[in-house]
């Protein structure tokens, strides 16, 4: 079977779309893009992360258009992205270049640079704040902090002990370096000479390159990454890591200037980063740790952590558990793929369903008729004709996908 066209009045489809847009129409002023980008930044960040496209203002527009549906917004961003040419790839940026606004290390209590909580409510109770119900204006609760920012060294307040010169102005020593200094991490190899696989341009092949795994996880759907990472922690896997650190901050985007050929910074991307330390030393001659890496656009710590768990799980090269099977993980974490396949089920499937109905009706009719053979012959004593009607043949797992014809999947 091929595709089957289903017609409907274009005007009526537009009416349905109008009805959708009418849901935003009330007596309140429309939410501005600045409000989405500022006050609902987690939502726009999720859309950018899952869309694989960093563009805060366009993400705010997408979230507004999608009426808050982050996956629909990510879909809109990917559709927009498909209309654009690529200028270039950046030189690979080192995570040490991150301007951190938050960094906590669950592994090292006395991490160089300190445990900087940054903007978070992680350590507070999850209670509804009814004070926001009739909030007149948003007030800055940090406005009266005693912060002098005009000192020559750019610092203020008491000097934190133990942070070296590098740990200034958001540049924090990566905990990986601390471990590497102890010989617990293998030195980084020579940088590869080939460009990393780009899964937006080449299909993922299995077994996948590690960079393909990282790229696909980085733009995976938050819920899927969280759920599959969680599955490993719940015993469907071997990885239960300690996080070296979780960092939130700004990563520079540098391009080659066409006149000078030097690397110049055009903007920063807001990112969340984490490294998961996995004790697999019993599997190695040289006792060292294994690691998983998580990095995603925007503030999305649970996705970054889930990504690091999945990266570490896939690196084990086992396939006993879902989280360790790269084909399973990469086939299910992409929001657009999952969204498209799940939601296509609500589109017209009339021919498919009519076919199923015909088959069921035929089987039922056959079942209702008296077996002609029985009337002529006594039952076989061996019972070999018991299953002359196999009602299971209509939808068994070995059957041709009855959905395949109409929607062409």
């Amino acid at each position, binding site marked *: 079977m091929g595709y089957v066209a289903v017609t409907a009045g274009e005007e009526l489809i537009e009416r349905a779309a109008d009805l959708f847009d009418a849901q935003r129409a009330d007596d309140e002023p429309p939410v501005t893009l600045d409000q989405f980008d500022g006050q609902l930044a987690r939502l726009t960040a999720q859309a950018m992360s899952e869309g694989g496209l960093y563009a805060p203002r366009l993400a705010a527009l997408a979230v507004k258009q999608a009426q808050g549906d982050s996956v629909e917004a990510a879909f809109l961003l990917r559709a927009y992205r498909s209309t654009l040419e690529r200028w270039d790839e950046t030189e690979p940026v080192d995570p040490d270049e991150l301007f951190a606004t938050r960094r906590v290390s669950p592994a090292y209590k006395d991490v160089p640079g300190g445990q900087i909580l940054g903007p978070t409510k992680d350590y507070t109770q999850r209670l509804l704040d009814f004070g926001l119900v009739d909030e007149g204006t948003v007030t800055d609760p940090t406005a009266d902090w005693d912060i*002098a920012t005009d000192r020559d060294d*750019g610092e203020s307040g008491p000097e934190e002990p133990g942070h070296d010169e590098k740990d200034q102005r958001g540049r924090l020593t990566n905990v990986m370096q601390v471990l590497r200094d102890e010989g617990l991490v293998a030195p980084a190899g020579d940088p590869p000479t080939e460009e990393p696989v780009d899964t937006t341009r080449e299909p993922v092949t299995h077994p996948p390159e590690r960079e393909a795994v990282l790229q696909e996880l980085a733009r995976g759907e938050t819920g899927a990454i969280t759920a599959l990472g969680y599955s490993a922690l719940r015993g469907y896997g071997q990885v239960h890591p300690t996080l070296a650190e979780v960092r939130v901050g700004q990563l520079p985007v540098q391009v080659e200037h066409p006149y000078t050929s030097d690397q110049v910074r055009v903007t920063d991307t807001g990112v969340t980063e984490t490294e998961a330390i996995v004790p697999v030393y019993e599997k190695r001659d040289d006792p060292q740790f294994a690691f998983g890496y998580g990095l995603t656009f925007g503030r999305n710590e649970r996705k970054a952590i889930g990504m690091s768990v999945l990266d570490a799980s896939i690196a084990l090269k086992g396939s006993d558990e879902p989280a360790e099977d790269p084909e399973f993980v990469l086939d299910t974490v992409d929001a657009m793929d999952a969204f498209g396949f799940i939601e296509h089920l609500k589109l017209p499937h009339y021919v498919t369903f009519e076919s199923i109905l015909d088959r069921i009706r035929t089987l039922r009719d056959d079942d209702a008729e008296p077996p002609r053979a029985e009337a002529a012959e006594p039952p076989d004593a061996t019972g070999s004709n018991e299953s002359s009607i196999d009602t299971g043949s209509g939808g068994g797992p070995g059957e041709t996908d009855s959905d395949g014809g109409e929607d062409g999947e």
Partner: protein
Amino acid sequence: MDNAYDRNDRFELIAACDGETLAGFADEILAAEPPLRVLQEPRPQLVMQQVREPVEGRPFNLGEVVVTPAEVRLDGEEGFAMRPGKAERHALSGAIVDAAVAGDHSLAGDIVTDLEAAGEAFERERRETWTRSRHTTVDFDVMEDEL
């Protein structure tokens, strides 16, 4: 990025500067109707951000970033700019401003002053953000001995 007479610094300052400031300078420059040729139309494009993961040092593609580049020749001097996001007008204005400073336009001094002020504002904001974050630095204590 503190010297707007330097081409690299100027690129970064134009990228960080308020777009309307660039547009205002571009309008002033074009008011005298100098010869202008747009070498590259401002059009949103993509830059793939590559990151080197910190353990094996392998680069991978994190995701694409929307930028808008533009290039002009103004009175015989070429100018190039790139703005983050979808920003056609501001990118074109940035390219005009870049060419004007390169060609020592009469407004070059004012442009440089504003660009460098934008750079200082960027640094000041970074300092303030960092300082606020540093005000949340905490010591985690192990409570085992106290139990």
